[in-house]
């Protein structure tokens, strides 16, 4: 009898919630508040298929684990006043939507998709157009931002937000996104153990990538091009930067890569092409720059005297106006086995390594670093002569800053 009763209860237990158990697929069409109502009616694990059309909806709050998939890029328009999606549940997926025209406010950070205190959220293949912030991640972990196209036409840095904005998060993967016209393409603050891969961040108003207090992160295979001030990586340790391209970040106050207070990091196989300054380093410790290409930059490297213990090994320096500039005579960094196109030494034993050291800091760059006004003599005959004289009789340039084993031929990277 007991066993029969138990069986009945078990059957009831399994069958009664059955209606909730099985995830259902719902189609949503463009009528007033249709998405909002559909989400309110949806149960855990449901999938909403948003059909193409224009949805004038805003502040859509997602608090249950659901999947939202757009069919033919439905447009969610926030009418220049409101926010787009606000997600505060774990394991939500948003895919294939076009979210546009969020409002602009100075009191709250208004975003196309905002994720707050959640985990395992996936934002995939969306188009985020003319939003203040594109994807905004706040106190989240294990979130994936894939293949989104984030763009804005704003011209003012103040009214504009970042493409992908992450704050106090961990284990993020930001991959294959295109960010353009935002304030910062990708912004990381207090974000740890994350990866930034294959993104294309160009023509942003300030930085292509802005990175602060974010430790043990890796960014690889990204392209940062034509950004207002290039890429800034600050106050972090254990950052790995590989195979990125920093192209044409050209302007009065523009850097390919700005490093400030960075420790124990690796910069490898990156290309720095036509930036005002390739890498600007300030207060860095133990940063290895290896196998990078510096081509056609104004200054390839600007290593302030506050940097120490960094190694610059096996890089190619080609066609830069100045190879290295520094602001002091103290130099605690090491240059070795680099190829410098301006090297005019000789190689008697034919081992492909120059027999005399190369001094990458020219006297004119020492002068201009001290007195920027002297830049007015740029490309005058006098400065060429000064450099030639200084090479024969070095007096002003920091004599510790030299490459003892300059390569005779371009390195294959």
């Amino acid at each position, binding site marked *: 009898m007991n066993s029969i009763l138990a069986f009945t209860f078990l059957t009831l237990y399994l069958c009664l919630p059955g209606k909730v158990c099985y995830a259902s697929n719902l189609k949503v069409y463009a009528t007033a508040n249709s998405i909002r109502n559909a989400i309110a009616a949806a149960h855990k694990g449901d999938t909403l298929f948003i059909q193409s059309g224009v949805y004038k909806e805003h502040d859509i709050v997602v608090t249950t684990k659901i999947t939202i998939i757009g069919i033919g890029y439905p447009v969610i328009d926030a009418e220049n006043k409101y926010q787009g999606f606000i997600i505060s549940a774990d394991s939500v997926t948003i895919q294939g939507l076009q979210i546009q025209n969020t409002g602009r406010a100075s009191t709250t950070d208004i975003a196309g998709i905002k994720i707050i205190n959640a985990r395992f959220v996936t934002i995939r293949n969306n188009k985020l157009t003319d939003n203040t912030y594109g994807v905004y991640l706040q106190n989240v972990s294990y979130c994936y931002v894939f293949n989104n196209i984030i763009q804005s036409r704003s011209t003012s840095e103040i009214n504009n937000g970042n493409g992908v904005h992450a704050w106090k998060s961990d284990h993020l993967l930001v991959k294959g996104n295109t960010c353009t016209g935002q304030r910062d393409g990708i912004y990381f603050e207090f974000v740890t153990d994350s990866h930034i891969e294959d993104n294309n961040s160009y023509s942003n108003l300030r930085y292509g990538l802005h990175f602060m207090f974010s430790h043990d992160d890796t960014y690889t295979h990204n392209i940062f091009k034509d950004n207002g001030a290039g890429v800034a990586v600050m106050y972090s340790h254990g950052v790995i930067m590989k195979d990125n391209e920093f192209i044409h970040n050209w302007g009065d106050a523009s850097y390919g890569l700005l490093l400030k207070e960075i420790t124990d990091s690796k910069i490898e196989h990156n290309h720095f092409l036509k930036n*005002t300054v390739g890498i600007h380093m300030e207060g860095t410790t133990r940063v290895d720059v290896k196998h990078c290409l510096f081509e056609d930059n104004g200054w390839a490297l600007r290593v302030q005297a506050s940097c120490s213990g960094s190694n610059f090994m096996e890089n190619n320096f080609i066609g830069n106006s100045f190879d290295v500039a520094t602001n002091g005579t103290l130099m605690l960094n090491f240059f070795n086995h680099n190829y410098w196109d301006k090297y005019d030494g000789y190689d008697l034993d034919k081992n492909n390594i120059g027999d005399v050291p190369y001094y990458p800091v020219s006297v004119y760059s020492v002068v201009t670093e001290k*007195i*920027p006004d002297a*830049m007015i003599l*740029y490309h005058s005959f*006098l400065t060429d002569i000064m450099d030639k004289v200084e090479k024969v009789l070095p007096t002003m340039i920091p004599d510790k800053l030299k490459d003892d084993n300059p390569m005779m031929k371009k390195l294959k990277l």
Partner: protein
Amino acid sequence: MRTIIKYVLLDLLKNKTIIVYTIILAALSVSVLSMGSNATKGLLSLLNITLLFVPIISILFSTIYFFNSIEFTELLLAQPIKRKTMLLASYTGVAFALGIAYIIGIGVPVCIFSYGPAALTLIISGLFLSLIFSALALLIFVLFKDKTKGIGAAIIIALFFTLLFDGLLLSFIYSFSDYPIEKPLLGMISLNPVDLGRILVLLQLDVAVMMGYSGALFKKFLGSATGSIYVFACMMFWIVIPLFLSVRKFRKKDL
């Protein structure tokens, strides 16, 4: 006057030095422009060539030419021709010849390979430098009786403007680096046509951003319409003042 100009010009266009000068300029610019992958770099090299060679060649060649043609001048002055006309006519001839050489040597290749505002500025400043330094040569010719002394003075003037002036400017910048010297610098640059030409061309190229704060200031001023007029006026002064002085001196010169 026109006849004299024609004579001088025809004489000069057949002159071997002018032909060699043209060919060297053309060879340099074609090789520099066709070799480089990057138009800015080619223009920068040509700018360096222009700033170094054009002043020295112009002033030396003109000085030597004026001194060598002193007999021709004396002969002509025996005719009823004003000294002023005679002097200005031979200056115009020489300046024209040097200008044509520059246009053929650098202007044409630049226009073919990398035409743009920067290229035009380069051609204009090169032309101005040719005219200015031949005017200075005329002044030297009038001031000195002896050819050797004249050539010496020409070399010194050319070196002064291409090299010494920048050295003085650098020491000025060094000594007054604690003060806001951008505006005085702008004034001082106007005292040297070579620097004026260099900065004009640099501002047209995108390397201008490397000139930093002072560069931005120059761009703001020299990039404006007033700035262009100012530079043009400065360059014109550099032609007109030596010419004026030499005409005045030549009037009373004992030939």
